[in-house]
């Protein structure tokens, strides 16, 4: 024992806490640890700058229960992820997505996976800290200046006085035989407490209580009535500088937000002074001819036929006899129906072209006006086509030209 340099022990009134041996390399430490283990000590530990493989075995450390803690946390995370998604999306606020079932679980798997990992990771770190009794602000070993090198390059073995096998003489001899570089006594630390400082605890308590204040205000706001409107921190598009139609506008004499157009203004394309073209009238009476701009030629006839087929034939029928598919359906249903006119009736044959134009434009009886759907020029084309249909029932051979008569033969 004499060849081992013994550290100078200062006059220490504090009781002995344990015996500390210092080593220079992991192999010597492991040999020492095996000896201490085999001697039957239980309240002892080794301190190293890094984890040494094989040290668990040399010290006889049993497997930690940390994996089980993490497993439980993983199962809790999985359950929380599943139940929370089910309750929120399928029960409490049912999200209808493209007609899928409210609970279509494969699409919920990614988030279940993430919550499982999240809970497990917190359990792994938190469990390690709790099982290791961390954080630990102070320890008697901190009083040893040389112990600081435990996080650098030195290896330590420490046996506590509390160990049932501890004996001041025997334990020292046991450690001295393991060829430590230094053997030292460690005394209890009376100067510093291993408790968290009181001030820090109070500060944390006050901060914790203060952090609840906003939530208390939220809770109060939920239960109380407000005399003012919602507070808009960010206005988004809730308020715009424009004046709404029914709101007032102080800029104008009449204080109205909605403005009338100046008297006499005509919207674009709304100037309709030609009575013949737009009303079908010449003076007070209906016009008997097409307006000057509409030419009774083959292209106008084709246009009229096409528009008649689209707008008129559904009720009046392709040949204008009032038997279109809508009429047929209405007759079958027998629910009361004003039938569309047969365009071949005598009084319709006698009507001036302008009156037929008026009927298409403004409607009659059950028929609504088509002004919004068919342009005036197209309406005149329909009139021309109706005239042709009517003529088709009363035409005489004498109406044909000589060439056409020749074809008939």
């Amino acid at each position, binding site marked *: 024992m004499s060849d081992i340099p013994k550290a100078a022990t200062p006059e220490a009134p504090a009781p002995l806490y344990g015996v500390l041996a210092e080593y220079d390399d*992991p*192999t010597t430490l*492991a*040999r020492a*640890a095996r000896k201490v283990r085999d001697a039957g000590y239980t309240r002892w*530990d*080794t*301190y*190293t*700058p*890094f*984890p*040494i*493989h*094989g*040290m*668990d075995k040399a*010290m006889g*450390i049993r497997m*930690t229960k*940390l*994996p089980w803690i*993490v497993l439980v946390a993983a199962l809790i995370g999985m359950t929380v992820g599943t139940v*929370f998604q089910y309750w929120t*999306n399928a029960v409490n*606020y049912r*999200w209808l*997505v493209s007609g*899928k079932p409210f609970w*279509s679980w494969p*699409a*919920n798997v*990614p*988030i279940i*996976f*993430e*919550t499982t*990992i999240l809970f*497990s*990771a*917190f359990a*792994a*770190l938190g469990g*390690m*800290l709790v*099982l*290791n009794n*961390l954080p*630990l*602000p102070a*320890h008697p*070993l901190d009083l040893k200046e040389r112990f600081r090198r*435990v*996080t*650098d*390059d030195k290896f330590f073995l420490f046996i506590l006085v509390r160990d049932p096998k501890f004996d001041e003489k025997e334990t020292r001899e046991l450690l001295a035989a393991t060829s430590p570089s230094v053997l030292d006594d460690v005394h209890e630390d009376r100067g510093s407490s291993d408790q968290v400082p009181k001030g820090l605890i109070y500060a944390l308590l006050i901060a914790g209580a203060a952090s609840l204040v906003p939530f208390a205000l939220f809770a109060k706001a*939920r239960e109380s009535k407000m005399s003012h409107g919602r507070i808009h*921190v*960010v206005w*988004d598009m809730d308020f715009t500088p424009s004046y709404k139609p029914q709101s007032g506008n102080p800029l104008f004499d009449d204080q109205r937000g909605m403005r009338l157009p100046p008297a006499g203004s005509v919207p674009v394309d709304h100037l309709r002074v030609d009575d013949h073209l737009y009303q079908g009238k010449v003076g007070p009476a209906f016009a008997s001819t097409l307006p000057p701009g509409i030419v009774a030629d083959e292209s106008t006839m084709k246009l009229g036929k096409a528009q008649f087929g689209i707008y008129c034939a559904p009720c009046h029928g392709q040949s204008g006899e009032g038997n279109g598919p809508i009429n047929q359906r209405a007759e079958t249903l027998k629910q009361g129906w004003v039938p569309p006119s047969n365009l071949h009736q005598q009084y319709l044959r006698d009507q001036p072209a302008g009156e037929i134009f008026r009927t298409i434009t403004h409607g009659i009886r059950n028929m609504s006006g088509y002004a919004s759907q068919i342009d005036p020029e197209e309406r005149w084309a329909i009139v021309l086509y109706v005239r042709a249909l009517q003529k088709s029932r009363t035409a005489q051979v004498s109406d044909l030209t000589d060439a056409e008569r020749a074809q008939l033969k």
Partner: protein
Amino acid sequence: MATPSTTNPYQGLLKGDNPFAQITDNVSRIMEAPKPPLAWYIALGFALMLLGIFGASLGYVVWEGIGAWGHIHPVAWGFPIVNFVFWVGIGHAGTLISAVLFLFRQNWRTAINRFAEAMTIFAVVCAAVFPGVHIGRPWLPYWMFPIPNQMGMWPQFRSPLEWDVFAVGTYATVSILFWYMGMIPDFATFRDRSVSTVRRFVYGLLAMGWRGSSRQWHRYERAYLLLAALATPLVLSVHSVVSFDFATSQLPGWHTTIFPPYFVAGAIFGGFAMVVVLAVPARQFFGLKKIITMKHLELMAKVILATGMIVGYAYAMEMFIAWYSGAMYEQFAFLNRAFGNFAWAYWTMIFCNVLSPQVFWFKKMRTNVWVIFVVGIIVNVGMWFERFVIICTSLTRDFLPANWGAFIPSPIDYATLAGSFGLFFTLFLLFCRYLPMVAMAEVKAFIPEGHIHDH
């Protein structure tokens, strides 16, 4: 201690009788030096300038509305989402190195895992900014979280965009936990070496009273293994979920089942490239050449080559499947990628991601820091273009020619892209100076002197 000496990059490097103290000194002196190297100040100044641009341009976007960015119908995603996917991808290497290589017992990772993890976290921070602002009303991001509200509404958990919130959120949280836990023993080293009270208090607080007890190490290592086992599927899931944003849509060019593995491989590829880009100057300026050795850089070059080949395979397979599907729109989408309006971007991507890493077949190139550094930058450019190609070509040329459009980025687009690098580098430079840049305890455990030699 079955590590064969030939694979140990530290064999014969750390000479002298106390390699542990050498490692501690090498890493701790970066924090303890009264002044960091001049290069650090220059780099920080540049990074802060870019960060200022980031803040100003994002402030403008928030104030004016997201129309300040160049995206417009039909490219509603544009640069912000390209940048988001790019940064999330960068953020994959850290956890991959920490977790996946740990599970595969690739112990060489110990030299680079710490700052790769830091890089991960900073990249995820950069990534989160973009969708956070791109949502349009950045003051309402909490609508994405399941918080009880007066409308009685809950988020739609079956949407891939909501999966993203959880995947990226969980990934950021678990990465921070993993990073912090890894640093606890190194904080204790910093604490025990501190001479000033402030440092001793701050690092002491962060170390939480760690004293290196073997009984604590036992639980610590178990927790580390568990976190690695949890983070491994997590890192694979994050970019898979990001790829679902595309793959679950019906757009030609997005609607493909290869996306999840293709995105993950691309993320590892881009992430490793960023690690070498950061590692090369870091080891140079902070004197870490003995800890981050040429062997490490060579191994990372090999990973870049391997993942680059996987990415190249994915590009080829996309083309093949488009042809093999017989689907007209799919075929057009891919022909258009290679020969259409953004063909230049496509061929830039092919050059950067598929061709440039091929130089790593040669050992001479793998062991030349300049080649590694330059290829790392090229690959990062290529990975940015990969996301640009996926988003912009597909959106500008979808099913109906009537719905086709052009995409012209605005100056604000470029400003936010450049600015995000400012945020990333500012955080990284502060990390280099004030936190343990290398996992000292893990490196010590890995060198031959750290093993028990008599059993």
